[in-house]
């Protein structure tokens, strides 16, 4: 080093003492921060990722369980259906109810629609990039259009839409059935193909609005569309049927 020499070595001892203390404090601090990282979840991405993976594993496990239970259930039903009369009627009603509840996968003719964020970037026309991304209300509008046109089953990115399926914006992400979905958004709908197509393509409708802003929109009719069941069927904690069985 190009330091000017100065008299003696009287700096060595105090410097050593100070370094010892400073090193010790750094040691304790690094140690503390490491433990903090391990226990305090809020700040640490790694911890969050760990939690997410664990939760995903759990969800997977529970979905397997649901699958298994459904298998058992359908076995019971098959046995019951082999009997005659009333059980058969009930069986048919159950069939419709299950489609409505979304607990079974369904297939049939329909349409597929794919929406992605716009290829335009902010700065060109309007100021805000928000204009050029798909929002929850776009999806809501499309879903509503599909129901209006008589769709019998609808899904977004594999999430079955049912009565009471929320489509909501949560921290710049879109959640369908409380599951995060991202662009591209793939709608599948079963119903009368022509009606569905014309309803979506209606002049100044939602797709027209998106096309103007150069959102890539891919809409195609399909011979057969397969729509998956809902992963977690709704639970009814508060609502109770009113009728003969009701005790009031």
């Amino acid at each position: 080093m190009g330091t000017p020499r100065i008299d003696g070595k009287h700096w060595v001892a105090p410097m050593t003492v100070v370094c010892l203390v400073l090193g010790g404090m750094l040691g304790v601090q690094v140690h503390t921060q490491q433990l903090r990282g391990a226990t305090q979840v809020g700040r640490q991405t790694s911890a969050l990722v760990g939690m997410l993976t664990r939760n995903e594993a759990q969800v997977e496990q529970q979905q397997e369980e649901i699958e298994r239970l459904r298998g058992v259930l359908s076995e019971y039903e098959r046995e019951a259906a082999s009997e005659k009369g009333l059980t058969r009627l009930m069986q048919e009603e159950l069939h419709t109810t299950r489609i409505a509840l979304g607990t079974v996968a369904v297939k049939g003719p329909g349409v597929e629609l794919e929406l992605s964020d716009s290829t335009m970037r902010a700065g060109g026309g309007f100021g805000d990039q928000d204009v050029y991304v798909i929002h929850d209300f776009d999806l809501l509008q499309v879903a509503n259009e599909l129901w209006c046109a008589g769709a019998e089953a609808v899904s977004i990115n594999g999430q079955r839409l049912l009565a009471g399926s929320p489509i909501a914006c949560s921290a710049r992400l879109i959640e369908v059935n409380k599951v995060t979905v991202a662009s591209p958004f793939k709608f599948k709908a079963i119903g009368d193909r022509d009606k569905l197509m014309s309803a979506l393509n209606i002049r100044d409708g939602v797709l027209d609005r998106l096309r103007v802003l150069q959102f890539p929109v891919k809409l195609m009719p399909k011979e057969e569309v397969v729509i998956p069941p809902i992963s977690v069927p709704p639970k009814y904690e508060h609502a109770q049927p009113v009728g003969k069985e009701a005790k009031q």
Partner: protein
Amino acid sequence: MIAIPFSALVLGFLVVYVLLPPVPPRWADYVAIAIVAGLDAFVGAARNWLERRFDEAIFISGFFVNMALAALLAYFGDKLGVDLYLAVLVALGIRIFNNLGRTRALLVTARVEARRVRPAAPSE
């Protein structure tokens, strides 16, 4: 000669890191601010040394007292609900940068002058 304080630094780090338990998390902030105060004393000492007015008594006392004061001030700030922590941090930060800048300037000047006096000899 610089090796002795340096190895003391490493030794202190390792001994505490390996042997001692970590402090409770709510004290961690005070330790952090104390470390910053220690760094400030350190850099200040470097500057003083280059300016040839280094004094070990001032250095040692400044190091420990400033550390304690910085942590104490942050602690009182927390008790009062005022972010004195930030005030300490900003003040120390500015001082550290000033002293670092001054140190660098002194080092560069020393080098330039050494070259001017003896152009042939490589400055060490």
